[in-house]
């Protein structure tokens, strides 16, 4: 897997990943911008408005018809939080020309042009988004934010993040908040959008059975929407280790009540490290703690104590944080929390075997190797590297770094890991 990078202009990069492994071509474009309270809701609304139509394809049903005609091309525009950034993610997936019956169309070109049209040339009237769309999408956004409580497990995790990063950008919900929706003015929003595409970091990924990067570069440079984009000093926050410097070392305990049958217990852990390379140790630590069926969480909370069906942990690389998740009977809260804390303590005391370490590494490297086989994972991985200021680590190097982690490394890191927030969702 090779990501060939071409600078289209300052702050605008084309990534070409040529592969004949897949039956699809995947084109994506990412706009990366600073995450902050002021703009988070505006960005969310824009991501919804851009789906509604473009100058040349003014409505959603026409856009849908176009995609259906492209043999069911899949389009989506989503939002993500990466470190202290909000990222717009536009995707189009089409089938390769090779699998199109009697065709001489070059579908990848059509897909690239369509994606640029959707992201850069929205349907507007008098320097505003179409009023009808604007009003409807405000309602849709309200619904998305209110709908956050519907998936209780996801909600509990999001709430734990919110509490843990209360006064930091990362604590913001990626779709913003309801109070700010009504304050948004259509004309100002369109102005804001024009500024956004002038200043954000832009990455375009083209992956699949496609020509070389030169031809794609030429296509993009001659595209009427893309050629208007000027070079920029992109305004975003490269991902790097940050020391949160929490003054009080008190655990924050938050309980919230909703109608649930099962309690959802989430713990947010701080990892107080300073070097980039220590992240690989954190990955291994997490894998032993709760990353697989052999992990301490799964074995002790689920298999031995029978307290949960879900009992795991995950490492959020770009924030250098671990979240522990479990769904438990509400009455078992104290019991479950005690066992979970014992696991964390065990890690610090080195109560895990060399074999646990070996297996944890195997789980990680197997996971890494699957990136080669998945088109979207390839792009996600390459973009992750792109966002990381100080490194560009290949998959092979990544695996070597994991292999190099020792038991002592893990114990050392366990000593600087502490519980920041305990969040419990109950009835």
């Amino acid at each position, binding site marked *: 897997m090779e990501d060939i990078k071409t600078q289209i202009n300052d702050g605008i990069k084309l990534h070409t990943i040529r592969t004949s492994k897949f039956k699809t071509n995947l084109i994506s474009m990412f706009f990366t911008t600073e995450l902050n309270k002021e703009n988070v809701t505006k960005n969310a609304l824009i991501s919804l408005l851009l789906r509604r139509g473009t100058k040349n394809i003014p409505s959603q049903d026409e856009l849908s018809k176009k995609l259906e005609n492209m043999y069911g091309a899949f389009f989506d525009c989503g939002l993500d939080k990466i470190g202290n950034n909000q990222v717009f993610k536009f995707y189009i997936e089409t*089938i390769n020309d090779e699998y199109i019956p009697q065709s001489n169309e070059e579908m990848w070109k059509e897909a690239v042009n369509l994606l640029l049209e959707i992201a850069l040339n929205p349907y507007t009237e008098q320097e505003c988004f179409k009023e009808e769309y604007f009003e409807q999408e405000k309602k849709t956004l309200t619904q998305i934010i209110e709908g956050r409580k519907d998936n209780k497990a996801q909600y509990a995790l999001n709430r734990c993040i919110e509490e843990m990063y209360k006064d930091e950008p990362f604590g913001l919900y990626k779709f913003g908040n309801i109070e700010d929706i009504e304050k948004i003015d259509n004309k100002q929003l369109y102005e804001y959008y024009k500024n956004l595409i002038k200043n954000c970091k832009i990455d375009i990924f083209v992956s699949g059975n496609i020509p070389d990067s030169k031809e794609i570069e030429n296509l993009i440079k001659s595209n009427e929407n893309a050629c208007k984009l000027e070079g920029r000093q992109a305004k975003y926050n490269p991902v790097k280790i940050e020391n949160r410097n929490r003054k009080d070392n008190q655990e924050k305990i938050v309980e919230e009540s*909703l109608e649930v*049958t099962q309690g959802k217990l989430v713990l947010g852990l701080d990892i107080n490290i300073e070097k980039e390379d220590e992240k690989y140790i954190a990955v291994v630590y997490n894998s032993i703690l709760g990353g697989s069926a052999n992990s301490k969480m799964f074995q002790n909370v689920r298999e031995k104590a029978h307290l949960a*069906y879900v009992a795991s942990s995950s490492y959020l690389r770009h924030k250098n944080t671990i979240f522990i998740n479990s769904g438990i009977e509400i009455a078992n809260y104290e019991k479950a929390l005690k066992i979970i804390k014992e696991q964390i303590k065990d890690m610090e005391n080195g109560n895990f075997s060399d074999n646990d370490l070996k297996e944890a590494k195997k789980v990680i490297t197997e996971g890494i190797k699957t990136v080669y086989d998945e*088109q979207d994972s390839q792009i996600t991985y390459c973009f992750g590297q792109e966002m990381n200021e100080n490194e560009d680590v290949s998959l092979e190097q990544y695996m070597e770094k994991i292999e190099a982690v020792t038991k002592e490394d893990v114990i050392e890191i366990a000593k600087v890991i502490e519980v920041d927030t305990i969040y419990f969702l109950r009835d």
Partner: protein
Amino acid sequence: MQVIENLKVKEKVYIEKLENGLTIMIIPKKDIQKKYIIWGTKYGSNESTFVVPGETDPIEVPKGVAHFLEHKMFEQENGTNSLDVLTSLGVNANAYTTNDHTAYLFEGIDNFYEALDELMDYVQHPYFTDENVEKEKGIIGQEIMMYDDYPEWKVYLNALEAMYHEHPVKLDITGTIETISHIDKDVLYKCYNTFYNPSNMVMVACGDFLPEDLLEEIKKRLEKKEANGEIKRIYPEEPENIVKEKVEQKMQVSIPLYTIGIKVPPLEETQKVKTHLGVEILLDLIFGKSSELYKRLYNEGVIYGAPGCDFEFANGYAHILLTGQANDPEKVYEEFKKKVIEYKEKGINKEDFERIKRSIYGSFVKEYDDVADIARMFISDTFKGINSFDYLEEIDAINVEYVEQLLKNLFKEEKMVISIVKN
């Protein structure tokens, strides 16, 4: 081995039926590192009454046994748990139970044959004790409670309950805390010995394999077991009509969820693929993202997205489902019914039809990238008596007249139900 090639997606499937009745299917994928293997038995939550081969009287077992059995298969007599062993080998192992089958699988890159040892060992060697059966009731109890908090699951199950009087498809795959309390090791052994016989099982592998070599490796690991003859499965008589048209449940949700169900007669053996394709085309035409109905309801603020559409069928049942969220689900239901009538009267526009057909063709091609998607598609289709490649071939033959006829035959107003979950 028998080889079937599909020129549209340029893939081949190698099929072998062994003497003991086991069917093995291998789909080679060059240059892909990941290997996926799945071993399933045609035994799901629907099979609760059956005649053990060699016996005469039917027996009835508690609801949820198939799923319980799936959980318990991992435990080994020597005290190890096969899920742990597989995880130690660095592969990703799992198992699942559906209405019509149960399957055990793993995917991974290295240690494939070591993992195959373990998979084939544990599926062929059950070990149930009073103690380990009791312990599992706690874990499954938590799984059942987890589903209780999913409004999507409730709205779906309620729709099935509104459609079916007797058929067990309407019941939760896991059973309930009450039904699983009656499960003991004897019941588990009885079901295992009946359904986990090679003649009732299918194995599918997908990845960079030489089919003949893999076949030999599988044969080496098979215990000697004779085919045990036909298992008579008994399903209760299911009336054609629905139970009730509307069902509502209160749950804390931000916006109501709905499932519209249409009960249709069980499919004829030769018509399954064609009917499935026809129904998909119709649902896209009526309520897909390019439809007039979707556009209007979205613009009116009734819905925020297109419904997810499904056509589910197996032994003795078939139904169409549309699931989504709406401020006013009753309105969605009424408008959907009106649209169905309108299409029946006015017919289907040829251009729309061709466009949707193209789109569905593309979505089938996309299924052939991921080894897991491919293997799971083949195994579940095989248990339904379908060769997955047929979808790519039969779609060519579908024309407007056929789907218009299908619309008249299947989308009957008196067979429609709506299930709603709201505050």
